[in-house]
């Protein structure tokens, strides 16, 4: 089939299409539903919800805000990355909140070290937290994949890594809020939370070619190029 014939076939297939919503709107939907899911999981998993109302450490709440901001910015970047012409430098969006999140946790590490000395540099095993992060990030990530597939998967790996960062952020909030007591040290938070989020992002990036593809082209219009 030559190019002119292809254009004729495409024109014949020009049925009305509904424009996908702008990235900001899609982000708002996703983060809104994600927040509902986080609240639901925290209520479900937390053995002691009253503990949260007793937390008076501003750094703890600042960390949660920074995590949520990272999730929102990463989701916005992921949705932008599937819109042609808007995908450039999309990955830079979550960098500022991510840096804020890391900084808040790092400040906690320093404060722990000043208060407790070398004992604060111990990393404790925290499988409960890891489980909560995994559960908290799985559904938002799964929900985001079909939303991304409606766009143009121009850079599948980075797009899904951003989506995993967003979902991992929500998971990290679940991991923090659903605990019976506070983490033993900020270094534990740093290692487990960021370790889990990075692992999820890495796995997602590796699976990206199988999960995110350009929408089917030839089958969409019944065209088989010869």
């Amino acid at each position, binding site marked *: *089939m030559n*190019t*002119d014939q*292809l*254009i*004729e076939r*495409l*024109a*014949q*297939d*020009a*049925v*009305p*299409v*509904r*424009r*996908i919503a*702008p990235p900001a709107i899609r982000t708002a939907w996703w983060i809104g539903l994600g927040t509902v899911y986080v609240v639901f999981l925290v209520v479900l998993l937390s053995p002691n919800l009253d503990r949260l109302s007793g937390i008076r450490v501003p750094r703890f709440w600042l960390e949660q805000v920074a995590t949520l901001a990272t999730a929102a910015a990463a989701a916005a970047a992921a949705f932008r990355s*599937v*819109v*042609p*012409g*808007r*995908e*450039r430098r999309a990955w830079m969006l979550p960098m500022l909140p991510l840096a804020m999140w890391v900084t808040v946790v790092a400040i906690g590490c320093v404060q722990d070290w000043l208060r407790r000395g070398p004992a604060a540099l111990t990393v404790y095993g925290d499988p409960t937290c890891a489980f909560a992060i995994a559960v908290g990030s799985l559904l938002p990530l799964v929900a985001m994949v079909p939303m991304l597939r*409606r*766009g*143009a998967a*121009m*850079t599948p790996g980075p797009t899904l890594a951003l989506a995993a960062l967003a979902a991992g952020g929500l998971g990290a909030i679940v991991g923090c809020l659903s605990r019976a007591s506070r983490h033993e040290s900020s270094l534990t938070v740093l290692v487990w939370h960021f370790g889990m989020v990075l692992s999820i992002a890495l796995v997602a990036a590796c699976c990206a070619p199988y999960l995110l593809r*350009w*929408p*089917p*082209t*030839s089958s*969409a*219009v019944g*065209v088989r*190029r010869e």
Partner: protein
Amino acid sequence: MAAANAGDGEAYAQLLKAVTPVIRRVVAQRWYVRSPIGVEDVVQDVLLSVHAVRATYDPMRPFLPWLLAIVHHRVADAARKHKRSTGREVQVDEPSVTFLAAEANTYGTGYGDVDALQVAIRSLPAGQRNAIELLKLQELSLHEASAATGTSVGALKVATHRAMSTLRRMLKTNEH
């Protein structure tokens, strides 16, 4: 493009025809495989991609950056695909129809020295010469030759085999 997304096929065809030369030019600039067929393949891929993701076009934003982003990524995809497929291929010259060694070329080498063959056949012992004449020159079957000569089939086979060996040896000696 907005009209095309609303289902106006005519406007869509006009748009695609108008942008195809632009796409072709950009692809030709970026596509490193210097083959017109390769360029046209990528152009068609871009058109199919435009069609597949036309729902991502925002009428409030300019059309060309949207189109060029698709072109850019499709060219990159095509280059990766081309590299993957050619990376497993080894370019070789067109292979010979048969092996180069003379021993392997049993066909198509033409006739040898016919006179030398006739002389060699005449020099064979009578039994072997008869077997060759009947079975190879007159192309009789073993049973026909056996009936004609009164010799057993087995004896004819042995005589033919020995005659062929003798002839091969004699002709080889003549060549040297």
